[in-house]
Protein backbone atom coordinates (compact mmCIF):
# COMPACT_ATOMS: atom_id res chain seq x y z
CA UNK A 1 0.00 0.00 0.00
CA UNK A 2 1.29 3.46 -0.81
CA UNK A 3 1.84 5.60 2.29
CA UNK A 4 -0.59 8.27 1.09
CA UNK A 5 -3.32 5.74 0.19
CA UNK A 6 -5.25 6.51 3.36
CA UNK A 7 -9.00 6.00 3.71
CA UNK A 8 -9.63 9.73 3.57
CA UNK A 9 -7.87 9.96 0.19
CA UNK A 10 -10.03 7.09 -1.10
CA UNK A 11 -13.18 8.74 0.19
CA UNK A 12 -12.53 11.70 -2.04
CA UNK A 13 -12.99 9.49 -5.07
CA UNK A 14 -16.47 8.61 -3.93
CA UNK A 15 -19.26 10.94 -4.95
CA UNK A 16 -22.05 10.88 -2.41
CA UNK A 17 -25.36 12.60 -2.90
CA UNK A 18 -27.95 14.10 -0.64
CA UNK A 19 -30.79 11.76 -1.49
CA UNK A 20 -30.19 9.26 1.32
CA UNK A 21 -33.11 10.65 3.27
CA UNK A 22 -35.46 9.71 0.42
CA UNK A 23 -34.54 6.04 0.84
CA UNK A 24 -37.38 5.56 3.31
CA UNK A 25 -39.88 6.04 0.47
CA UNK A 26 -38.73 3.18 -1.76
CA UNK A 27 -36.99 -0.20 -1.73
CA UNK A 28 -35.24 0.87 -4.97
CA UNK A 29 -31.46 1.16 -4.86
CA UNK A 30 -31.26 4.95 -4.83
CA UNK A 31 -28.54 7.23 -3.42
CA UNK A 32 -25.78 4.68 -4.10
CA UNK A 33 -23.10 7.28 -4.71
CA UNK A 34 -20.42 6.54 -7.27
CA UNK A 35 -16.69 6.22 -7.77
CA UNK A 36 -15.92 7.96 -11.04
CA UNK A 37 -18.67 6.58 -13.27
CA UNK A 38 -18.79 3.25 -11.46
CA UNK A 39 -20.55 1.74 -8.50
CA UNK A 40 -18.84 1.32 -5.17
CA UNK A 41 -17.37 -2.13 -4.53
CA UNK A 42 -19.77 -2.80 -1.66
CA UNK A 43 -22.73 -1.97 -3.94
CA UNK A 44 -21.53 -4.38 -6.60
CA UNK A 45 -20.91 -7.19 -4.12
CA UNK A 46 -24.35 -6.77 -2.55
CA UNK A 47 -25.92 -6.93 -6.01
CA UNK A 48 -24.10 -10.18 -6.84
CA UNK A 49 -25.20 -11.75 -3.57
CA UNK A 50 -28.82 -10.74 -4.17
CA UNK A 51 -28.66 -12.10 -7.71
CA UNK A 52 -27.32 -15.45 -6.47
CA UNK A 53 -30.16 -15.66 -3.94
CA UNK A 54 -32.78 -14.89 -6.59
CA UNK A 55 -31.32 -17.59 -8.86
CA UNK A 56 -31.51 -20.07 -5.98
CA UNK A 57 -35.15 -19.15 -5.40
CA UNK A 58 -36.01 -19.95 -9.04
CA UNK A 59 -34.58 -23.44 -8.70
CA UNK A 60 -35.88 -24.25 -5.19
CA UNK A 61 -38.48 -27.03 -5.15
CA UNK A 62 -41.80 -26.55 -3.37
CA UNK A 63 -42.62 -29.08 -0.65
CA UNK A 64 -46.02 -30.12 -2.03
CA UNK A 65 -46.54 -32.77 0.68
CA UNK A 66 -46.21 -30.21 3.46
CA UNK A 67 -48.45 -27.65 1.72
CA UNK A 68 -51.05 -30.32 0.97
CA UNK A 69 -51.00 -31.44 4.60
CA UNK A 70 -51.50 -27.89 5.88
CA UNK A 71 -54.40 -27.39 3.47
CA UNK A 72 -56.11 -30.62 4.53
CA UNK A 73 -55.78 -29.54 8.16
CA UNK A 74 -57.75 -26.46 7.13
CA UNK A 75 -60.47 -28.66 5.62
CA UNK A 76 -59.52 -28.13 2.01
CA UNK A 77 -60.00 -31.02 -0.35
CA UNK A 78 -56.72 -31.11 -2.28
CA UNK A 79 -55.71 -32.58 -5.64
CA UNK A 80 -51.99 -32.60 -6.44
CA UNK A 81 -51.14 -32.76 -10.15
CA UNK A 82 -48.17 -32.19 -12.44
CA UNK A 83 -47.93 -30.22 -15.62
CA UNK A 84 -46.54 -31.85 -18.75
CA UNK A 85 -43.10 -30.40 -17.90
CA UNK A 86 -41.04 -33.17 -16.32
CA UNK A 87 -38.57 -31.07 -14.34
CA UNK A 88 -37.44 -27.51 -13.72
CA UNK A 89 -35.02 -27.45 -16.65
CA UNK A 90 -37.74 -28.53 -19.07
CA UNK A 91 -40.19 -26.13 -17.40
CA UNK A 92 -37.85 -23.20 -18.11
CA UNK A 93 -37.28 -24.20 -21.73
CA UNK A 94 -40.79 -25.30 -22.68
CA UNK A 95 -43.52 -22.89 -21.55
CA UNK A 96 -46.07 -24.83 -23.62
CA UNK A 97 -45.58 -27.90 -21.39
CA UNK A 98 -46.05 -25.87 -18.21
CA UNK A 99 -49.42 -24.74 -19.54
CA UNK A 100 -50.73 -28.30 -20.03
CA UNK A 101 -51.60 -31.05 -17.57
CA UNK A 102 -49.73 -34.34 -17.58
CA UNK A 103 -51.95 -37.28 -18.53
CA UNK A 104 -52.10 -38.46 -14.91
CA UNK A 105 -52.95 -34.92 -13.83
CA UNK A 106 -55.79 -34.84 -16.30
CA UNK A 107 -57.18 -38.12 -14.93
CA UNK A 108 -56.96 -36.81 -11.36
CA UNK A 109 -58.91 -33.66 -12.28
CA UNK A 110 -61.49 -35.67 -14.20
CA UNK A 111 -62.35 -37.49 -10.99
CA UNK A 112 -63.31 -34.26 -9.21
CA UNK A 113 -66.73 -32.74 -8.58
CA UNK A 114 -67.85 -30.73 -11.59
CA UNK A 115 -69.63 -27.41 -11.99
CA UNK A 116 -68.61 -25.21 -9.04
CA UNK A 117 -68.64 -21.43 -9.40
CA UNK A 118 -64.95 -20.89 -8.64
CA UNK A 119 -61.96 -23.18 -9.18
CA UNK A 120 -58.81 -22.34 -7.23
CA UNK A 121 -55.47 -23.47 -8.60
CA UNK A 122 -52.12 -22.99 -6.81
CA UNK A 123 -48.92 -23.49 -8.80
CA UNK A 124 -45.25 -23.23 -7.89
CA UNK A 125 -44.48 -21.07 -10.93
CA UNK A 126 -41.08 -19.45 -10.54
CA UNK A 127 -41.00 -19.14 -6.76
CA UNK A 128 -41.60 -21.95 -4.28
CA UNK A 129 -40.97 -19.41 -1.53
CA UNK A 130 -43.92 -17.29 -2.66
CA UNK A 131 -46.32 -20.22 -2.35
CA UNK A 132 -44.84 -21.36 0.98
CA UNK A 133 -45.13 -17.87 2.45
CA UNK A 134 -48.38 -16.56 1.06
CA UNK A 135 -50.72 -19.29 -0.16
CA UNK A 136 -52.27 -20.22 3.20
CA UNK A 137 -52.73 -16.60 4.39
CA UNK A 138 -54.44 -15.69 1.09
CA UNK A 139 -56.72 -18.73 1.19
CA UNK A 140 -57.59 -18.19 4.86
CA UNK A 141 -59.03 -14.80 3.92
CA UNK A 142 -60.31 -15.72 0.48
CA UNK A 143 -62.52 -18.67 1.36
CA UNK A 144 -64.84 -16.92 3.88
CA UNK A 145 -65.24 -13.98 1.48
CA UNK A 146 -66.21 -16.27 -1.41
CA UNK A 147 -68.62 -18.22 0.79
CA UNK A 148 -70.15 -14.93 1.98
CA UNK A 149 -70.97 -14.23 -1.69
CA UNK A 150 -72.64 -17.67 -1.86
CA UNK A 151 -70.07 -18.87 -4.39
CA UNK A 152 -69.23 -22.57 -4.43
CA UNK A 153 -65.59 -23.71 -4.50
CA UNK A 154 -64.41 -27.18 -5.45
CA UNK A 155 -61.20 -28.97 -4.57
CA UNK A 156 -58.03 -26.92 -4.48
CA UNK A 157 -55.71 -27.99 -7.28
CA UNK A 158 -51.97 -27.90 -6.50
CA UNK A 159 -49.85 -27.88 -9.66
CA UNK A 160 -46.18 -28.80 -9.91
CA UNK A 161 -44.18 -27.02 -12.69
CA UNK A 162 -47.26 -25.00 -13.61
CA UNK A 163 -47.78 -21.80 -15.58
CA UNK A 164 -50.72 -19.41 -15.42
CA UNK A 165 -52.53 -20.82 -18.45
CA UNK A 166 -52.73 -24.31 -16.95
CA UNK A 167 -55.64 -22.88 -14.97
CA UNK A 168 -57.61 -22.66 -18.23
CA UNK A 169 -57.44 -26.38 -18.81
CA UNK A 170 -58.13 -27.17 -15.15
CA UNK A 171 -61.03 -24.72 -14.90
CA UNK A 172 -62.53 -26.09 -18.08
CA UNK A 173 -62.24 -29.72 -16.93
CA UNK A 174 -63.86 -28.76 -13.63
CA UNK A 175 -66.63 -26.90 -15.44
CA UNK A 176 -66.02 -23.82 -13.26
CA UNK A 177 -67.44 -20.42 -14.17
CA UNK A 178 -64.21 -18.75 -13.11
CA UNK A 179 -60.69 -19.80 -12.21
CA UNK A 180 -58.25 -18.15 -9.81
CA UNK A 181 -54.62 -19.17 -10.30
CA UNK A 182 -52.30 -18.35 -7.40
CA UNK A 183 -48.73 -18.70 -8.63
CA UNK A 184 -45.17 -17.91 -7.56
CA UNK A 185 -43.92 -14.87 -9.47
CA UNK A 186 -40.45 -14.54 -10.96
CA UNK A 187 -38.10 -13.61 -8.09
CA UNK A 188 -36.57 -10.17 -8.17
CA UNK A 189 -33.41 -9.05 -6.43
CA UNK A 190 -35.31 -7.34 -3.66
CA UNK A 191 -38.28 -9.72 -3.34
CA UNK A 192 -38.25 -13.45 -4.02
CA UNK A 193 -41.58 -14.23 -2.31
CA UNK A 194 -44.20 -12.49 -4.51
CA UNK A 195 -47.36 -14.42 -5.30
CA UNK A 196 -49.55 -13.48 -8.25
CA UNK A 197 -53.30 -14.04 -8.64
CA UNK A 198 -54.75 -14.45 -12.14
CA UNK A 199 -58.51 -14.44 -12.53
CA UNK A 200 -60.13 -15.74 -15.71
CA UNK A 201 -63.84 -15.89 -16.53
CA UNK A 202 -65.11 -19.01 -18.31
CA UNK A 203 -61.70 -20.71 -18.46
CA UNK A 204 -60.98 -22.68 -21.61
CA UNK A 205 -57.88 -23.76 -23.50
CA UNK A 206 -56.37 -21.03 -25.72
CA UNK A 207 -57.62 -18.11 -23.60
CA UNK A 208 -55.80 -14.84 -24.32
CA UNK A 209 -53.88 -13.08 -21.54
CA UNK A 210 -55.97 -9.99 -22.26
CA UNK A 211 -58.97 -11.91 -20.87
CA UNK A 212 -57.41 -12.19 -17.39
CA UNK A 213 -57.15 -9.86 -14.44
CA UNK A 214 -53.95 -9.95 -12.44
CA UNK A 215 -53.23 -8.97 -8.86
CA UNK A 216 -49.52 -8.99 -8.31
CA UNK A 217 -46.84 -8.56 -5.64
CA UNK A 218 -48.78 -10.44 -2.93
CA UNK A 219 -46.38 -10.78 0.01
CA UNK A 220 -46.13 -9.47 3.58
CA UNK A 221 -43.96 -6.48 2.55
CA UNK A 222 -45.93 -5.81 -0.66
CA UNK A 223 -49.66 -6.31 -1.03
CA UNK A 224 -50.51 -8.16 2.23
CA UNK A 225 -52.43 -11.45 1.75
CA UNK A 226 -55.56 -10.15 3.49
CA UNK A 227 -55.76 -7.11 1.19
CA UNK A 228 -55.02 -9.32 -1.80
CA UNK A 229 -57.93 -11.62 -0.88
CA UNK A 230 -60.24 -8.59 -0.70
CA UNK A 231 -59.04 -7.38 -4.13
CA UNK A 232 -59.41 -10.84 -5.66
CA UNK A 233 -63.00 -11.07 -4.43
CA UNK A 234 -63.64 -7.54 -5.71
CA UNK A 235 -62.63 -8.63 -9.20
CA UNK A 236 -64.60 -11.89 -8.90
CA UNK A 237 -67.71 -9.96 -7.88
CA UNK A 238 -67.43 -7.73 -10.96
CA UNK A 239 -66.62 -10.73 -13.16
CA UNK A 240 -69.84 -12.47 -12.13
CA UNK A 241 -71.81 -9.23 -12.56
CA UNK A 242 -70.52 -8.52 -16.08
CA UNK A 243 -69.71 -12.10 -17.16
CA UNK A 244 -66.17 -11.18 -18.24
CA UNK A 245 -62.60 -10.58 -17.05
CA UNK A 246 -59.54 -8.90 -18.54
CA UNK A 247 -59.15 -5.68 -20.49
CA UNK A 248 -62.89 -5.44 -21.14
CA UNK A 249 -63.61 -5.67 -17.41
CA UNK A 250 -60.90 -3.09 -16.69
CA UNK A 251 -62.68 -0.63 -18.93
CA UNK A 252 -65.80 -1.05 -16.80
CA UNK A 253 -63.81 -0.96 -13.55
CA UNK A 254 -62.06 2.23 -14.59
CA UNK A 255 -65.36 3.93 -15.28
CA UNK A 256 -66.92 2.78 -12.02
CA UNK A 257 -63.88 3.78 -9.98
CA UNK A 258 -63.90 7.28 -11.42
CA UNK A 259 -67.62 7.67 -10.84
CA UNK A 260 -67.18 6.59 -7.23
CA UNK A 261 -63.99 8.35 -6.22
CA UNK A 262 -62.36 10.57 -8.81
CA UNK A 263 -58.62 10.63 -9.37
CA UNK A 264 -56.30 11.22 -6.44
CA UNK A 265 -53.67 13.99 -6.24
Amino acid at each position, binding site marked *: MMPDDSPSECDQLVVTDNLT*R*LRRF*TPARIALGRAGSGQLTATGLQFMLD*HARARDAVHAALDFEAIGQSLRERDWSVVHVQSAAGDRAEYLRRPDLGRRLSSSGRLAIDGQLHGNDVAIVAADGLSALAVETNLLPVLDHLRPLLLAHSLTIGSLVLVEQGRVAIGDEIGQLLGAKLVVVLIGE*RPGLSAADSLGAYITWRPRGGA*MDSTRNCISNIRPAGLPPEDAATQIVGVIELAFKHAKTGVQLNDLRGTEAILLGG*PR*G
Partner: protein
Amino acid sequence: MRAQDLIVVAAKCSVITAFRNTIGLAGRLSTRLQPNHPTDDSRGIAASLLDGLLFGVGDAVIGVNPATDGVQDYVRIVTLLDNVRERLDVPTQTCCLGHVTTAIQAINLGAPVDLVFQSIAGSEKANRGFGISLSVLTEAHDAALSLGRGTLGRNVMYLETGQGSALSAEAHFGIDQQTMEARAYAVARRFKPLLINTVVGFIGPEYLYDGKEITRAGLEDHFCGKLLGVPMGCDVCYTNHAQADQDDMDALLTLLSAAGVTFVIAVPGADDVMLNYQSLAFHDILYVRQTLGRRCAPEFEDWLKRMGLADADGRLLEKAASGAIGSAIALIETMEA
Protein backbone atom coordinates in the same frame (compact mmCIF):
# COMPACT_ATOMS: atom_id res chain seq x y z
CA MET B 1 -25.23 -11.71 -40.70
CA ARG B 2 -22.66 -11.51 -37.95
CA ALA B 3 -22.85 -9.14 -35.00
CA GLN B 4 -20.58 -6.63 -36.71
CA ASP B 5 -22.81 -6.57 -39.80
CA LEU B 6 -25.82 -5.80 -37.61
CA ILE B 7 -23.82 -3.01 -36.00
CA VAL B 8 -22.28 -1.45 -39.10
CA VAL B 9 -25.58 -1.24 -41.00
CA ALA B 10 -27.60 0.06 -38.05
CA ALA B 11 -24.94 2.69 -37.31
CA LYS B 12 -25.50 4.16 -40.78
CA CYS B 13 -29.25 4.64 -40.25
CA SER B 14 -30.56 7.93 -38.95
CA VAL B 15 -34.01 8.24 -37.37
CA ILE B 16 -34.80 11.56 -35.70
CA THR B 17 -37.93 12.27 -33.66
CA ALA B 18 -39.04 15.07 -31.37
CA PHE B 19 -41.51 16.03 -28.64
CA ARG B 20 -39.97 18.38 -26.05
CA ASN B 21 -36.44 17.53 -27.16
CA THR B 22 -34.74 15.93 -30.16
CA ILE B 23 -34.04 12.19 -30.11
CA GLY B 24 -31.70 10.30 -32.43
CA LEU B 25 -29.14 12.92 -33.51
CA ALA B 26 -25.69 11.70 -34.55
CA GLY B 27 -23.37 10.90 -31.62
CA ARG B 28 -26.23 10.92 -29.15
CA LEU B 29 -27.61 8.20 -26.89
CA SER B 30 -30.79 8.97 -24.98
CA THR B 31 -32.10 7.23 -21.88
CA ARG B 32 -35.43 6.35 -20.39
CA LEU B 33 -35.56 6.92 -16.66
CA GLN B 34 -37.75 4.16 -15.18
CA PRO B 35 -38.60 5.11 -11.57
CA ASN B 36 -40.90 2.18 -10.81
CA HIS B 37 -42.25 1.42 -7.35
CA PRO B 38 -43.89 -1.87 -6.22
CA THR B 39 -47.08 -0.12 -5.09
CA ASP B 40 -46.87 3.06 -7.21
CA ASP B 41 -46.16 5.16 -4.10
CA SER B 42 -45.89 8.76 -5.33
CA ARG B 43 -42.95 9.64 -3.08
CA GLY B 44 -41.16 6.42 -3.97
CA ILE B 45 -41.56 7.13 -7.69
CA ALA B 46 -40.39 10.72 -7.24
CA ALA B 47 -37.36 9.61 -5.18
CA SER B 48 -36.12 7.27 -7.93
CA LEU B 49 -36.92 9.91 -10.55
CA LEU B 50 -34.73 12.45 -8.80
CA ASP B 51 -31.94 9.90 -8.34
CA GLY B 52 -31.93 9.31 -12.10
CA LEU B 53 -31.98 13.01 -13.01
CA LEU B 54 -28.88 13.50 -10.85
CA PHE B 55 -27.16 10.96 -13.11
CA GLY B 56 -28.32 12.87 -16.20
CA VAL B 57 -30.76 10.09 -17.12
CA GLY B 58 -34.24 10.68 -18.57
CA ASP B 59 -33.96 12.60 -21.85
CA ALA B 60 -35.83 9.96 -23.88
CA VAL B 61 -38.69 9.75 -21.41
CA ILE B 62 -39.42 9.50 -17.72
CA GLY B 63 -41.67 6.46 -17.81
CA VAL B 64 -43.32 4.50 -14.98
CA ASN B 65 -44.67 0.97 -15.33
CA PRO B 66 -47.72 1.06 -13.07
CA ALA B 67 -48.28 -1.81 -10.61
CA THR B 68 -52.03 -1.69 -11.23
CA ASP B 69 -53.96 -1.03 -14.41
CA GLY B 70 -56.71 1.31 -13.18
CA VAL B 71 -57.32 4.76 -14.66
CA GLN B 72 -57.23 6.44 -11.23
CA ASP B 73 -53.62 5.40 -10.66
CA TYR B 74 -52.76 6.24 -14.25
CA VAL B 75 -54.03 9.79 -13.78
CA ARG B 76 -52.24 10.14 -10.44
CA ILE B 77 -48.93 8.93 -11.92
CA VAL B 78 -48.93 11.15 -15.03
CA THR B 79 -49.95 14.12 -12.89
CA LEU B 80 -47.11 13.42 -10.47
CA LEU B 81 -44.56 13.06 -13.27
CA ASP B 82 -45.81 16.22 -14.96
CA ASN B 83 -45.60 18.17 -11.68
CA VAL B 84 -41.99 17.17 -11.05
CA ARG B 85 -41.03 17.81 -14.69
CA GLU B 86 -42.60 21.28 -14.58
CA ARG B 87 -41.13 22.11 -11.18
CA LEU B 88 -37.62 21.33 -12.42
CA ASP B 89 -38.34 22.61 -15.96
CA VAL B 90 -36.88 19.47 -17.57
CA PRO B 91 -36.98 19.44 -21.38
CA THR B 92 -38.21 15.86 -21.61
CA GLN B 93 -41.47 13.91 -21.78
CA THR B 94 -43.25 11.69 -19.30
CA CYS B 95 -45.30 8.54 -19.63
CA CYS B 96 -47.29 6.05 -17.59
CA LEU B 97 -46.97 2.66 -19.27
CA GLY B 98 -50.54 1.54 -18.65
CA HIS B 99 -52.73 -0.03 -21.30
CA VAL B 100 -53.59 2.15 -24.28
CA THR B 101 -57.31 2.03 -23.44
CA THR B 102 -56.51 3.35 -19.95
CA ALA B 103 -54.52 6.17 -21.57
CA ILE B 104 -57.52 7.10 -23.73
CA GLN B 105 -59.75 7.21 -20.64
CA ALA B 106 -57.17 9.36 -18.82
CA ILE B 107 -56.94 11.79 -21.75
CA ASN B 108 -60.73 12.08 -21.76
CA LEU B 109 -60.53 12.94 -18.06
CA GLY B 110 -58.10 15.77 -18.84
CA ALA B 111 -54.93 14.12 -17.53
CA PRO B 112 -51.55 15.57 -18.66
CA VAL B 113 -50.53 12.77 -21.02
CA ASP B 114 -47.34 13.43 -23.02
CA LEU B 115 -46.73 10.02 -24.60
CA VAL B 116 -49.20 7.17 -25.01
CA PHE B 117 -47.59 3.78 -24.42
CA GLN B 118 -48.45 0.35 -25.74
CA SER B 119 -46.83 -3.06 -26.14
CA ILE B 120 -47.27 -4.25 -29.71
CA ALA B 121 -46.57 -7.47 -31.58
CA GLY B 122 -46.19 -8.74 -35.13
CA SER B 123 -49.53 -10.45 -35.77
CA GLU B 124 -53.15 -9.40 -35.48
CA LYS B 125 -53.79 -12.31 -33.12
CA ALA B 126 -50.86 -11.46 -30.84
CA ASN B 127 -52.02 -7.85 -30.73
CA ARG B 128 -55.48 -9.08 -29.78
CA GLY B 129 -53.69 -10.89 -26.92
CA PHE B 130 -52.44 -7.44 -25.82
CA GLY B 131 -56.04 -6.20 -26.01
CA ILE B 132 -55.33 -3.91 -28.97
CA SER B 133 -55.97 -3.46 -32.69
CA LEU B 134 -54.70 -0.94 -35.24
CA SER B 135 -57.92 1.04 -34.83
CA VAL B 136 -57.47 1.32 -31.04
CA LEU B 137 -53.89 2.51 -31.60
CA THR B 138 -55.14 5.06 -34.13
CA GLU B 139 -57.70 6.32 -31.65
CA ALA B 140 -55.00 6.68 -28.97
CA HIS B 141 -52.60 8.39 -31.38
CA ASP B 142 -55.27 10.92 -32.35
CA ALA B 143 -56.19 11.50 -28.70
CA ALA B 144 -52.57 12.21 -27.73
CA LEU B 145 -52.05 14.52 -30.72
CA SER B 146 -55.19 16.46 -29.80
CA LEU B 147 -53.53 17.57 -26.55
CA GLY B 148 -50.77 19.39 -28.47
CA ARG B 149 -48.28 19.05 -25.61
CA GLY B 150 -45.13 18.62 -27.69
CA THR B 151 -43.13 21.81 -28.15
CA LEU B 152 -40.59 20.65 -30.75
CA GLY B 153 -42.36 17.78 -32.47
CA ARG B 154 -45.48 15.69 -32.81
CA ASN B 155 -44.18 12.17 -32.11
CA VAL B 156 -46.53 11.13 -29.31
CA MET B 157 -46.32 7.35 -29.11
CA TYR B 158 -44.00 5.14 -27.05
CA LEU B 159 -44.10 1.48 -28.12
CA GLU B 160 -42.55 -1.69 -26.77
CA THR B 161 -41.83 -5.02 -28.43
CA GLY B 162 -39.77 -8.14 -27.84
CA GLN B 163 -38.97 -11.39 -29.57
CA GLY B 164 -41.19 -14.21 -28.36
CA SER B 165 -44.34 -12.20 -27.66
CA ALA B 166 -46.22 -13.74 -30.60
CA LEU B 167 -44.89 -17.22 -29.85
CA SER B 168 -45.87 -16.99 -26.17
CA ALA B 169 -49.42 -16.04 -27.23
CA GLU B 170 -49.40 -18.92 -29.75
CA ALA B 171 -50.02 -16.27 -32.38
CA HIS B 172 -46.89 -16.74 -34.54
CA PHE B 173 -48.39 -18.98 -37.26
CA GLY B 174 -45.27 -21.13 -37.36
CA ILE B 175 -43.02 -18.16 -38.17
CA ASP B 176 -39.72 -17.62 -36.31
CA GLN B 177 -39.71 -15.08 -33.49
CA GLN B 178 -37.24 -12.72 -35.12
CA THR B 179 -39.42 -12.28 -38.22
CA MET B 180 -42.49 -11.80 -36.03
CA GLU B 181 -40.55 -9.10 -34.16
CA ALA B 182 -39.64 -7.24 -37.36
CA ARG B 183 -43.34 -7.27 -38.32
CA ALA B 184 -44.07 -5.41 -35.07
CA TYR B 185 -41.90 -2.52 -36.30
CA ALA B 186 -44.13 -2.24 -39.34
CA VAL B 187 -47.05 -1.77 -36.96
CA ALA B 188 -45.02 0.84 -35.05
CA ARG B 189 -43.99 2.81 -38.14
CA ARG B 190 -47.60 3.66 -38.89
CA PHE B 191 -47.90 5.64 -35.65
CA LYS B 192 -44.70 7.71 -35.95
CA PRO B 193 -43.49 6.90 -32.41
CA LEU B 194 -41.11 9.15 -30.49
CA LEU B 195 -39.58 5.98 -29.08
CA ILE B 196 -39.78 2.24 -29.50
CA ASN B 197 -37.76 -0.38 -27.70
CA THR B 198 -37.36 -4.11 -27.57
CA VAL B 199 -37.47 -5.41 -23.99
CA VAL B 200 -34.94 -7.92 -25.11
CA GLY B 201 -34.21 -10.08 -22.06
CA PHE B 202 -37.50 -9.59 -20.26
CA ILE B 203 -39.44 -12.45 -21.75
CA GLY B 204 -37.18 -15.07 -20.23
CA PRO B 205 -35.19 -18.17 -21.15
CA GLU B 206 -38.20 -19.80 -22.82
CA TYR B 207 -37.53 -17.50 -25.76
CA LEU B 208 -33.97 -16.21 -25.29
CA TYR B 209 -32.11 -18.74 -23.21
CA ASP B 210 -28.94 -17.01 -22.05
CA GLY B 211 -26.75 -13.94 -22.29
CA LYS B 212 -25.51 -14.93 -25.73
CA GLU B 213 -29.02 -15.24 -27.17
CA ILE B 214 -30.12 -12.00 -25.50
CA THR B 215 -27.13 -10.18 -26.99
CA ARG B 216 -27.76 -11.52 -30.47
CA ALA B 217 -31.49 -10.68 -30.29
CA GLY B 218 -30.77 -7.15 -29.04
CA LEU B 219 -28.53 -6.47 -32.04
CA GLU B 220 -31.04 -8.06 -34.46
CA ASP B 221 -33.95 -6.06 -33.12
CA HIS B 222 -32.04 -2.79 -33.24
CA PHE B 223 -30.86 -3.50 -36.78
CA CYS B 224 -34.35 -4.41 -38.06
CA GLY B 225 -35.94 -1.44 -36.32
CA LYS B 226 -33.48 1.02 -37.83
CA LEU B 227 -33.86 -0.50 -41.30
CA LEU B 228 -37.63 -0.03 -41.00
CA GLY B 229 -37.10 3.58 -39.95
CA VAL B 230 -38.27 3.52 -36.34
CA PRO B 231 -36.42 5.24 -33.44
CA MET B 232 -35.18 1.95 -32.04
CA GLY B 233 -34.06 1.63 -28.46
CA CYS B 234 -33.47 -1.34 -26.21
CA ASP B 235 -34.18 -2.33 -22.64
CA VAL B 236 -30.86 -4.07 -22.02
CA CYS B 237 -32.15 -6.52 -19.45
CA TYR B 238 -32.57 -10.05 -18.12
CA THR B 239 -34.66 -11.98 -15.64
CA ASN B 240 -33.55 -14.15 -12.76
CA HIS B 241 -34.57 -17.37 -14.47
CA ALA B 242 -32.32 -16.70 -17.47
CA GLN B 243 -28.63 -17.61 -17.67
CA ALA B 244 -27.36 -14.05 -17.77
CA ASP B 245 -25.81 -11.46 -15.52
CA GLN B 246 -24.61 -7.87 -15.43
CA ASP B 247 -21.50 -8.70 -17.49
CA ASP B 248 -23.81 -9.64 -20.38
CA MET B 249 -25.59 -6.31 -19.96
CA ASP B 250 -22.28 -4.40 -20.10
CA ALA B 251 -21.43 -6.19 -23.32
CA LEU B 252 -24.80 -5.58 -24.98
CA LEU B 253 -24.85 -1.93 -23.90
CA THR B 254 -21.41 -1.43 -25.42
CA LEU B 255 -22.36 -3.17 -28.68
CA LEU B 256 -25.64 -1.31 -29.03
CA SER B 257 -23.94 2.01 -28.35
CA ALA B 258 -21.48 1.24 -31.13
CA ALA B 259 -24.50 0.47 -33.34
CA GLY B 260 -25.99 3.90 -32.56
CA VAL B 261 -28.95 2.73 -30.49
CA THR B 262 -31.50 5.52 -30.05
CA PHE B 263 -32.00 4.99 -26.33
CA VAL B 264 -31.62 2.53 -23.48
CA ILE B 265 -33.43 2.17 -20.16
CA ALA B 266 -31.99 2.64 -16.68
CA VAL B 267 -33.27 2.04 -13.14
CA PRO B 268 -31.69 2.66 -9.72
CA GLY B 269 -28.87 0.16 -9.19
CA ALA B 270 -30.05 -1.97 -12.17
CA ASP B 271 -32.77 -3.51 -9.96
CA ASP B 272 -36.39 -2.91 -10.99
CA VAL B 273 -38.24 -3.38 -7.70
CA MET B 274 -41.66 -3.50 -9.37
CA LEU B 275 -41.15 -5.68 -12.45
CA ASN B 276 -38.57 -7.87 -10.69
CA TYR B 277 -35.89 -7.99 -13.36
CA GLN B 278 -32.53 -6.35 -13.96
CA SER B 279 -31.95 -3.56 -16.46
CA LEU B 280 -29.10 -1.05 -16.58
CA ALA B 281 -28.06 1.07 -13.61
CA PHE B 282 -27.79 4.85 -13.87
CA HIS B 283 -24.05 4.29 -13.40
CA ASP B 284 -23.96 2.24 -16.61
CA ILE B 285 -25.10 5.31 -18.54
CA LEU B 286 -22.18 7.28 -17.16
CA TYR B 287 -19.89 4.43 -18.20
CA VAL B 288 -21.02 4.49 -21.83
CA ARG B 289 -20.95 8.29 -22.05
CA GLN B 290 -17.42 8.34 -20.67
CA THR B 291 -16.11 5.42 -22.71
CA LEU B 292 -17.81 5.91 -26.07
CA GLY B 293 -18.46 9.63 -25.85
CA ARG B 294 -22.20 9.37 -26.52
CA ARG B 295 -24.11 12.43 -25.35
CA CYS B 296 -27.72 12.96 -24.35
CA ALA B 297 -30.25 15.02 -26.35
CA PRO B 298 -28.95 18.59 -26.82
CA GLU B 299 -31.90 20.30 -25.10
CA PHE B 300 -31.50 17.99 -22.11
CA GLU B 301 -27.73 18.55 -22.04
CA ASP B 302 -28.34 22.31 -21.90
CA TRP B 303 -30.68 21.73 -18.96
CA LEU B 304 -28.04 19.68 -17.12
CA LYS B 305 -25.63 22.59 -17.54
CA ARG B 306 -28.22 25.14 -16.41
CA MET B 307 -28.95 23.06 -13.31
CA GLY B 308 -25.27 22.86 -12.39
CA LEU B 309 -25.24 19.09 -12.95
CA ALA B 310 -22.89 19.04 -15.96
CA ASP B 311 -19.85 21.01 -17.09
CA ALA B 312 -19.52 23.02 -20.30
CA ASP B 313 -18.74 19.83 -22.26
CA GLY B 314 -21.85 18.09 -20.92
CA ARG B 315 -19.93 15.83 -18.57
CA LEU B 316 -21.60 15.14 -15.24
CA LEU B 317 -19.97 17.09 -12.41
CA GLU B 318 -18.52 15.31 -9.41
CA LYS B 319 -20.43 17.62 -7.13
CA ALA B 320 -23.87 18.73 -8.26
CA ALA B 321 -25.22 22.14 -7.35
CA SER B 322 -27.91 21.55 -4.77
CA GLY B 323 -30.25 24.52 -5.30
CA ALA B 324 -33.13 23.29 -7.43
CA ILE B 325 -32.67 19.64 -6.46
CA GLY B 326 -32.93 20.65 -2.82
CA SER B 327 -36.36 22.14 -3.45
CA ALA B 328 -37.37 18.96 -5.28
CA ILE B 329 -36.41 16.88 -2.24
CA ALA B 330 -38.53 19.13 -0.06
CA LEU B 331 -41.41 18.73 -2.52
CA ILE B 332 -41.20 14.93 -2.34
CA GLU B 333 -41.12 14.91 1.45
CA THR B 334 -44.38 16.83 1.62
CA MET B 335 -46.15 14.67 -0.99
CA GLU B 336 -48.92 12.23 -0.20
CA ALA B 337 -48.16 8.55 -0.74
